[in-house]
């Protein structure tokens, strides 16, 4: 396991209870996206800190042993230097760090963030452990650590709400998570996803014509789509519905007829969201090579699958035509 100190930490829980601050919040966003909001430098500076605070990053390197040197600017103009040393960075489950003010001084507290799947969303627990009860009480009293923490996660929520409007995240080396907010009720979005007369209108790129769209929408039923490419070639693919509940979710397989044995599993969840529907679509490929084959037209070498070989040939072509 990647968390060797866990049992020790659990044993110490009781003695820690009076010197820690714990804040929890649930977000309507996939776990990987929430985790990335903590670890992607382009995200974290945008929401970090209580209301009215801004953050200036001097150096950031989020990996075990890496550091984040940043200054938090309070609403009254006070600057607070921060020096964080990351300990565990386990995407998308867990993040721990030692939190101090400047390099070389002992940390003021240790923080652990856990990310748990909660329905289609994510429950975040932010736990900060101080060296003594007195230190904890001081920070809570003088710096409003609890309210500040709540506000910080509130700001994270606002950031995530903006991000999920349209996002694509590599959840693992063989998993892609897409999120999108549509300004329509979820029954309508669900139907647009599943009824042939609707699917024909949007599925695929604008240069591709859908010439076959067959849907047998029930668990065990199949769908079959054929797209015609601009050069006239036809591309047939489809899959089986494994599970579905209108208008909540669909789980189906997806594969290309020309490439049997490379089916992916798609899970699409339709969630009520302010003024519309949040779609969370998670595609799990059988192997990392399958995902790379689907996801990129170049870069993969030495893999055994035909798709990877195709990618290689295409990459060579691109080099030749660029030369």
């Amino acid at each position, binding site marked *: 396991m990647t968390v060797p100190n866990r049992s020790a930490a659990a044993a110490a829980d009781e003695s820690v209870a009076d010197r820690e601050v714990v804040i929890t919040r649930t977000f309507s966003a996939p776990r990987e996206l929430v985790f990335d909001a903590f670890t992607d430098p382009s995200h974290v500076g945008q929401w970090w800190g209580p209301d009215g605070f801004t953050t200036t990053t001097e150096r950031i390197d989020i990996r075990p042993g890496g550091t984040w040197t940043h200054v938090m600017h309070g609403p009254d103009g006070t600057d607070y230097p921060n020096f964080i040393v990351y300990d565990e960075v386990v995407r998308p489950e867990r993040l721990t760090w030692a939190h101090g003010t400047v390099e070389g001084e002992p940390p003021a507290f240790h923080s652990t963030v856990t990310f748990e799947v909660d329905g289609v969303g994510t429950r975040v627990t932010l736990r900060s452990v101080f060296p003594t009860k007195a230190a904890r009480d001081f920070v809570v009293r003088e710096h409003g650590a609890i309210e500040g923490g709540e506000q910080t996660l509130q700001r994270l929520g606002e950031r995530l709400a903006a991000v999920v409007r349209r996002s694509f995240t590599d959840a693992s080396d063989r998993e*892609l998570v*897409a999120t*999108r907010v*549509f300004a329509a009720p979820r029954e309508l*979005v669900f139907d647009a996803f599943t009824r042939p007369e609707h699917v024909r*209108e949007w599925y695929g*790129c604008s240069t591709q014509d859908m010439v076959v769209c067959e849907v047998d929408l029930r668990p065990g039923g199949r769908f079959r789509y054929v797209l015609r490419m601009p050069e006239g070639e036809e591309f047939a693919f489809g899959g089986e519905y494994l599970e579905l509940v209108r208008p909540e979710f669909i789980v189906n397989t997806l594969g*290309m007829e020309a490439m049997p044995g490379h089916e992916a599993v798609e899970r699409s969840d339709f969630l009520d969201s302010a003024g519309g529907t949040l779609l969370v679509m998670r595609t799990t490929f059988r192997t990392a090579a399958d995902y790379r084959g689907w996801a990129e037209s170049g870069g993969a070498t030495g893999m055994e699958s035909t798709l990877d070989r195709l990618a*290689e*040939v295409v990459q060579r072509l691109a080099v030749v035509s660029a030369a």
Partner: protein
Amino acid sequence: MVMVSDGLSLTFAALADPTRRAILARLAGGEATVTELAAPFEMSMPAVSKHLKVLERAGLVERGREAQWRPARLRAAPLQGAAEWIGNYRRFWEESFDRLDAYLEDLQNREQSDDGTES
């Protein structure tokens, strides 16, 4: 039958063989004669010709008529078609979602104007 008329299936079938991929990779560097293509493979010229025929049927290779030795040339279009389709799963969905977005707006506008004429 779909699989027969489906050009991309032919493309994938042609690409399934490592020798044919190597031939394509060689041709990506410029046209070559059968003799030149056979050289690195320790393979008879008829065997190479057979592979070339499969590639030709898939439209991946064309043979020159201008000279007796008929050099083989790569035709990139089918490869691009295949690459385009599988090439960027992300871009495929991004564009589809954009289209769905616009389509849903249309649908709702239509529903609203239907409601308006009824009431």
